[in-house]
């Protein structure tokens, strides 16, 4: 194996094994800090040794053993402190010991602990990317345009709260599970969305690293909870959006809306996988949650070879179903965009205008109004709405597209 091959293999092993190593160490030593540090050291040792020694026959087992040794070394070093203090730092877990094959549950424990509702959303995101995703603090800081020291403190504070407030290291009980799974999915969808429509003037408009990581972690949760409809829904949704990634930005760096995209540039394999998941959920015959409905909407969009073939009545029906589940103004806004295709821009504009109170500070509200007003020939009002949307938008490619459309107004 060449040095480059070994390096690639290490990256792959890191993706495959990081969460497993951290989770099993957390379970064994009852401490996220020890687990994270020992796992990092084990991977650093692998990077040092494997290029010369070659990959061990079972890299995952090698890493777990090495990390266990590192953790024990650290605990021995700290053993001078009294035992009671150390015991107080242990994460709490009153479940009976798991059988050996239940290793996957350890990763689930890790995910649920990192996404605990008592942690602030930004802390959950950071902790999940670090502990489950294995991203470095520097990578996470860069992803969210935060100073590395500030991101380090955010993660440290979250780990300290888990310890001090005794956030349990376990999979929630069946009665709490739906709410807690939806909390986990919210974290992953936030990571995905930040990659899909990145904010900030000095970042790429589409951050493939973040969308890919969100999909990778959603796949992991799907593997761990294969029967959960909303997990399948989020995976399908993100795959169907990710499939359109290369068509979303024009050569001149403008965001391209779905009706203008080159459909030949869509990723057929991702669309196929997304459609299979949506069909699987339909066949399950269980009332869908919001991610499943959003996935179905995206499945309808991606089923049309030409934008003119889009089944808008089906999309409007799906939005109606979604509004009943999630009566948020943003859902209503997106539903109105579909209504414009079915019933015309005038009907849609009336629906959008009703949302002004709630969405006046949201760029997409003004961008939608601007487009509808343009289609109705009300150029002056359209221009004012584009101005407002441009002022509020945070994504460079979207600002470029809005500016282009405004400047084309007669």
């Amino acid at each position: 194996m060449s040095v480059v091959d070994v390096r690639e293999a290490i990256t792959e092993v890191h993706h495959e094994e990081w969460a497993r190593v951290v989770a099993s160490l957390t379970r064994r030593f009852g401490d996220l800090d020890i687990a994270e540090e020992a796992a990092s050291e084990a991977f650093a040792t692998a990077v040092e040794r494997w290029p010369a020694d070659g990959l061990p026959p079972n890299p995952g087992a090698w890493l777990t053993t090495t990390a266990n040794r590192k953790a024990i070394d650290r605990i021995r070093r700290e053993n001078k402190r009294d035992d009671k203090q150390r015991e107080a730092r242990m994460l709490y877990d009153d479940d009976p010991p798991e059988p050996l094959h239940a290793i996957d549950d350890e990763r689930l424990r890790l995910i649920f602990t990192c996404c605990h509702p008592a942690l602030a959303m930004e802390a959950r995101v950071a902790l999940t990317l670090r502990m489950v995703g294995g991203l470095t603090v520097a990578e996470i800081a860069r992803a969210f345009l935060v100073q590395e020291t500030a991101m380090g403190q955010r993660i440290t504070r979250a780990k300290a709260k888990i310890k001090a407030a005794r956030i349990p290291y376990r999979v929630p009980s069946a009665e709490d599970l739906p709410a807690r799974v939806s909390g986990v999915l919210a974290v992953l969808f936030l990571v995905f969305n930040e990659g899909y429509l990145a904010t900030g003037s000095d970042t790429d408009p589409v951050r493939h690293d973040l969308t890919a990581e969100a999909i990778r972690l959603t796949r992991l949760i799907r593997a761990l909870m294969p029967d959960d409809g909303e997990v399948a829904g989020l995976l399908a949704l993100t795959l169907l959006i990710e499939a359109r990634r290369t068509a979303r930005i024009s050569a001149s760096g403008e965001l391209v809306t779905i009706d203008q995209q080159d459909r030949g540039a869509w990723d057929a394999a991702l669309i196929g996988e997304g459609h299979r998941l949506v069909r699987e959920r339909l066949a399950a015959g269980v009332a869908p949650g919001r991610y499943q409905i959003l996935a179905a909407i995206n499945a309808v969009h991606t089923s049309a070879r030409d934008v003119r073939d889009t089944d808008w009545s089906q999309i409007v029906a799906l939005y109606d179903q979604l509004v009943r589940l999630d009566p948020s103004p943003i859902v209503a806004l997106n539903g109105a965009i579909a209504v414009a295709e079915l019933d015309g821009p005038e009907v849609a504009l009336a629906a959008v205008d009703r949302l002004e109170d709630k969405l006046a500070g949201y760029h997409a509200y003004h961008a939608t109004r601007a487009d509808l007003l343009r289609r109705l020939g009300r150029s002056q009002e359209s221009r004012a709405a584009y101005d407002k949307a441009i002022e509020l938008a945070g994504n460079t490619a979207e600002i470029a597209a809005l500016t282009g459309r405004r400047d084309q107004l007669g």
Partner: protein
Amino acid sequence: MQYLISVIDDGAGLATPTEEADIDAFNDRLQAEGYWLFAGGLGSPDPATVIDNRGDETVFTDGPFVESKEYLAGFWIIEAADLDVALKLAAEGSKACNRKVEVRPFL
């Protein structure tokens, strides 16, 4: 693990008879199920006195140590296995006393 559940009042004043009855029922439940350690209700912070005896002289200051619209109006101290249990009980406590509550672990 012990947790302090603080009741935060933002101007509602003393508990109404319905709130009192709900708090009593919640207290009974805490005791029956073994979570109860202690609880108490506090009036408005107006009659508070702050004492500072760190220096040579004891200084008394009339009024609460922090002027704020929100104040501590009571508390529970509970024994719970972990934060999930404490959060659930705190949510019930908030419903019973009809006020916001805060959960903090003891050291």
